């Protein structure tokens, strides 16, 4: 005041910014987040309270059931008498069977090794931080199945473990990974074939896709498993697991083909024309221009199909292949473990969840990474 009074022609100009004040307490931190996300309107507040109440009703008893009142060590279901919570006793006793089925114990390292090699092989395919993607992808489809077969089934001096001894998570993973690995390339070829201008190829592809899509998977498995041997002379039976696997791959490929076709159709015709204008031939234009874009668009669809496939493997239990689900079911028919259905099924569900959820998270990550402006 006095300054201005002394120099009336000097205007008031601030030379530095006012330091940023913290946001009002009601919009910052935990309180702010809660206010914005949980209590933003009376209706939302009511819903939030209701949800919390429901969680309160469900979670503590569930937690108590699963962890506090539960029993982890025991010899048989007799130990469960008087236990109010979960009786997990059969899980540690049968863990090996859940994971490996009837695979002989001294040979189980082979399953582990196959799994580790599979993961190592998968790493460069899934992430671009590891080099060698093309080679790894080719090896995964053409080389790895042979390695896995030698390791799991046995050859070159490894003791032979016939496929009827495979089971549990091992069998589920064999089914899921083989179906996933083969269905994608076959599905891409089928999708291209269906859009081909060559009538014979187009007709064959359409017939194949429509045929496999119009029969239920159970029927396919049933046919492969029991009807096929009726038509072949005795002693010429192909391996049962292989028959079911081929049926499974055919079925999966047909679905995959339609997912991929969706991506191909979403691309404007200009892309193909531009590729042709550049002088690229059909395969080059597909490989460099069309498929990379088309596949990127349908990542959610592809992963959706993968997850569905993974869960569909549970259907092989109806043809008596001892997958994870059947192991879980038969475990509780052992006189020792009678009546522990909840525990056995929950354990199996947990394993399924871990695998399906990881696939789903990976696909989200991949979508974000490849995002080049298509997302709205």
């Amino acid at each position: 005041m006095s300054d201005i009074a002394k120099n009336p022609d000097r205007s008031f100009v601030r030379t530095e910014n006012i330091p940023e004040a913290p946001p009002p307490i009601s919009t910052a931190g935990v309180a702010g987040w809660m206010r914005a996300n949980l209590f933003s309107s009376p209706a939302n507040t009511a819903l939030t309270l209701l949800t919390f109440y429901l969680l309160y009703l469900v979670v503590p008893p569930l937690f108590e059931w699963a962890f506090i009142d539960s029993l982890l060590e025991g010899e048989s279901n007799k130990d469960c008498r008087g236990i109010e919570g979960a009786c997990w006793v059969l899980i540690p006793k049968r863990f090996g069977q859940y994971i490996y089925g009837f695979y002989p114990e001294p040979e189980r390292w082979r399953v582990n090794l196959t799994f580790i090699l599979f993961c190592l092989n998968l790493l460069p395919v899934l992430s671009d931080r590891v080099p060698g993607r093309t080679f790894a992808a080719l090896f995964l489809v053409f080389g790895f199945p042979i390695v896995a077969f030698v390791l799991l089934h046995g050859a070159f001096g490894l003791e032979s473990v016939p496929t009827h001894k495979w089971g549990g998570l091992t069998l589920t993973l064999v089914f899921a990974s083989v179906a996933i690995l083969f269905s994608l390339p076959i599905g891409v070829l089928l999708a291209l074939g269906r859009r081909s201008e060559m009538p014979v190829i187009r007709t064959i592809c359409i017939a194949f896709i429509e045929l496999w899509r119009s029969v239920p998977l159970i029927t396919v498995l049933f046919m492969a498993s029991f009807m096929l041997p009726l038509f072949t002379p005795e002693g010429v039976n192909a391996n049962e697991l292989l028959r079911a696997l081929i049926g499974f791959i055919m079925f999966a490929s047909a679905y995959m083909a339609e997912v991929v076709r969706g991506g191909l159709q979403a691309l404007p015709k200009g892309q193909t024309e531009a590729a042709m204008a550049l002088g690229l031939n059909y395969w080059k234009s597909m490989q460099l221009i069309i498929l990379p874009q088309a596949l990127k668009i349908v990542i959610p669809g592809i992963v959706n199909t993968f997850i569905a496939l993974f869960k569909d493997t549970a259907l092989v239990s109806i043809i008596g292949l001892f997958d994870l689900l059947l192991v879980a079911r038969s475990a509780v028919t052992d006189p020792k473990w009678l009546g522990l259905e909840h525990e056995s099924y929950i354990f199996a569900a947990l394993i399924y969840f871990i695998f399906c959820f990881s696939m789903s998270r990976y696909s989200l990550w991949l979508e974000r990474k490849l995002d080049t402006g298509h997302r709205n």
Partner: protein
Amino acid sequence: MKKHLFTVVCAFAAVAVIASAVFAASPTLETVKKRGNLICGVNTGLTGFSAPDDKGVWRGFDVDYCRGISAAIFGNPDKVTYKPLTGKTRFPALQSGEIDVLSRNTTWTFKRDVNLGFEFVGVLYYDGQGFIARKSLGVKSAKELGGASICIQTGTTTELNLADFFRSNKMKFKSVVVEDAAEARQNYAANRCDAYTTDRSGLAAQRSVPKNPADHVILPEIISKEPLGPVVRHGDNVWGDIARWVRNALIVAEELGITSKNVDAMKKSSNPEIKRMLGQEGDFGSMLGLPKDWAYNVIKGVGNYSEIYERHIGPKTAVGLARGYNQLWTKGGILYSPPFR
């Protein structure tokens, strides 16, 4: 094209038929011997009858019958590959030759025996549909169940039997339809039905489930006949004979007091039937295409009928079934076998 395919299939079928006709006594036995093991169809999991144990070894009443056949053929009860089958897949599996013998708690009925082209080689276990009810209900007989709600598995013959039973006794009931045994158990445990009906062997397993088994009572009535037994395909009678006489050997062994423990001593017995059976006299084995001491191997390997029964479903096991009908005919049951003569 279609016609060609059909011709090819027919030709294959014809070749298969001719090939099987020119083989020696039993083509199935030849196949089994060449393969080195018996493929036996069993239940994917039925308490006491067939279930894998913690080590992954199949155990149970039906399983031991398979082991018996294996012992008869190979002298070793463990040369069996088990093929777990569901109710739906068991018959196609047998028809298509995927399995050599079906030992999976299968009820012997007219249609299965005649229409499906199978041969039931005998009854291994006489089952029947019964009821389990809560003790607090105060019911002593199934005839007092009028107005009760009853848990029942859908799509089984038990559903029909139940309706018939209540109609013929002029009673009403409320059915609580469930999908499988585990679900029935849950419903019954949660008080959604007063009683639960299925085969009595299943009821016993139900009652042995941990929480207070003494609160439940199995009612005395049996409302249907469920003779369970092993099955083979039509068309290989010698193989059928092998399966039949393995079953008979188990029963006759109990009758004659031969057990897995005393079978060696019994070889010196002077009883002519024991001598014939254990291969000391006559040559019953070669008539079946089996070794002379086949029945000795069966009993040595798996024991007699009573031993198998007590091991898996008898009163001392978790299933806890009394012998009942499945007692020898000499002891008040209906278990009977033709003699070894």
